[in-house]
């Protein structure tokens, strides 16, 4: 009987107020906890993205640049600057199996396949063709540059699969004529690329475009970066800075990234701002002559 009376009495105003206060306190603590956690999560996510961004850049850029060739009176660096570079980028490696004045066929046989980053594209890609002029003597070997006018990926050399590349006036380009070519030598397709820091939407990005492919504008590769987020320094064989594209032997690449959003400091007490991170590496040009 006593319990029945008590259960039917309901909540007093004081109990209700106490409950509301307690709920408010719990809700406030929970909200603060969630908000703080969200801030930390967002900050961590931003930092992870930032580090990933910078790390990707420091992998991609050297990978793209280390195959540049310099020497022998030529340079694959066509234009150099501190925030950008235009260069011939290697896109594959193959070996001739048949040569005529208007066509080079690259072997695609199992023992000598074509190793390509992608398929060769006429107009966009050109070739370096190795010419071994005098057997047994390396001093007169040369690489000649050829434009590619057509590609037939379903060609053959004998019974082996091959890729046929249309070229013009091969006989006049090759020293000593076509007869001086030793079939089986290497062919290296390349395209002219530009890497440059650029601004878009109030942020800075590392952009790339295929110059030889006729791409008019830079496409973002990674970012956002700082205003000096992509910086190149060039050094000669002695390690001294140089601006002569024929003398470059090593490059120093700096990638400086910045978070996409504002990040508050620990526990909401620190300053709010963008966080920066950077990586720097040195790239030795593998196809530059060794002193």
């Amino acid at each position, binding site marked *: 009987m006593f319990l029945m009376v008590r259960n039917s009495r309901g909540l007093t105003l004081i109990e209700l107020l106490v409950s509301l206060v307690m709920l408010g306190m719990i809700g406030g603590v*929970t909200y603060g*906890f969630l908000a703080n956690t969200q801030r*930390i*999560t967002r900050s961590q996510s931003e930092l992870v993205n930032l580090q990933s961004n910078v790390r990707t850049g420091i992998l991609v850029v050297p990978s793209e640049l280390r195959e540049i060739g310099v020497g022998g009176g030529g340079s694959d660096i066509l234009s150099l600057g501190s925030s950008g570079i235009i260069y011939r980028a290697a896109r594959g490696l193959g070996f001739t199996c048949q040569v005529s004045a208007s066509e080079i066929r690259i072997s695609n046989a199992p023992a000598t396949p074509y*190793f390509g980053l992608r398929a060769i594209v006429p107009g966009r890609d050109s070739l370096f063709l190795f010419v071994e002029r005098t057997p047994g003597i390396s001093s007169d070997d040369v*690489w000649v540059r050829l434009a590619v006018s057509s590609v037939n990926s379903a060609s053959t050399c004998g019974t082996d699969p091959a890729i046929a590349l249309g070229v013009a006036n091969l006989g006049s380009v090759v020293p000593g004529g076509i007869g001086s070519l030793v*079939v089986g030598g*290497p062919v290296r397709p390349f395209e002219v690329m530009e890497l440059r820091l650029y601004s878009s939407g109030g942020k800075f990005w590392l952009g790339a475009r295929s110059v030889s492919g006729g791409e008019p504008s830079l496409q973002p590769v990674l970012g956002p970066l700082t205003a000096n987020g992509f910086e190149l320094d060039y050094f000669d064989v002695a390690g001294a800075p140089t601006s002569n594209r024929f003398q470059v032997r090593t490059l120093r690449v700096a990638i400086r990234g910045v978070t996409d959003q504002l990040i508050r400091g620990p526990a909401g007490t620190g300053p709010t701002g963008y966080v920066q991170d950077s990586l720097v590496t040195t790239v030795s040009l593998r*196809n530059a002559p060794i002193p």
Partner: protein
Amino acid sequence: MRRSHSVVMIRVRSARPAVAADERGIALAIAVFALVVIGALVAGTFFAGRLEQRTGLNTMFAEQSFELAEAGATDVLANWVPGTFNTLAPGADTTLPPVALAPFQVYVPTVTRLTPDLFFVRATGQRLDAGGAVLAERTVGLLARLGIPAVNPGAAFVTGTGSQFFSQAVASGVDLDPVGWGGECPGVVDTVQAVRSAASVVDSTDCGGVSCLVGAPPPPALPILSPDSTVTSSLFTDFGGVSFDELAAMAEKIVGASAVPSPSLNGTGTCDRADPLNWGEPLTGLGFDDCFNYFPIIYAPGDFQLSNGRGQGILLVRGDFSIRGSAAFYGLVVTLGRFEAEVSPSLHGAVMAQGDSTIRSQSGGAALVQYSSCALTRALRQAGIARPLAERPWAQVFPLN
């Protein structure tokens, strides 16, 4: 009274669970909710951290495999094995066993011969886990050119001091392909002096005047260039940037004081290159044709005597070299000590001896030193070392075309 009291107690006990449920429910729900939220946040944070860690590790593995590949390609060139690689036919390749540079870090090298002079060396670097599964893989290639030792003796016999020819001994600078070698060196005719000597003493009086020395310029002028100021000590130790010691270090066969070489086949009927006395087969049609293209480098660290037998390649002798009986050798002989040939041995190619030399026929035979540019060329080509092209030798190799 006692009975009534006990009834009340039962009622109280039976009513309490309903009261307790009403008062504690929201706290339990909040606690569970908080635990779930905290758990989710911890899991999320852990996941993000784990993701970052994995990304970092993968980056490291990719870099390690790249470094392994590059080290592997360089390693193959630095430790070029002429006997294995120089005998590949153009278009053929060979893949060597994996080489471990560190625990779970290996490279797999492949050498492809592109042309008679060009090779493509590629190495695939692999970062493995404890079970041997590949975590990351990169391939790097190097284009290389065969650097053939630049040996131009300019005579059948080159001596750093004096030489004597007795009896029917013959030194001929008339370029001849060895018997049965037709087609191996088409169009090569390169007649040279019979003898070049740093000293003025080339004594052939005991073999009936100069008739035993044949070569350019033809008789009546003497086919002897003596004294020849270009015959210096470096001629015997430096072969166009490849030293005597470097060639010796590449030797497949290290011999003692004497040997009688003979070609041999292994159980599968192919040339047995592991046989220390198999120095290739210079003759054809005798059942050892698989050794016809085998030209090993043979090195004798001290004095060495070749008594009978036959072989081909490059023979390097640090001490005195003596060839006797009916021994036959095709290719290049370089000795830093004295040279002596007796009875009826034959040498096809060229002989370079830094010390005194005596060539003597006996027992009705004829000791012969016969110049052969073909024998020289074939022997030297097999001894070549591949080096990176002067321009654009390095390539990142992408696995798919």
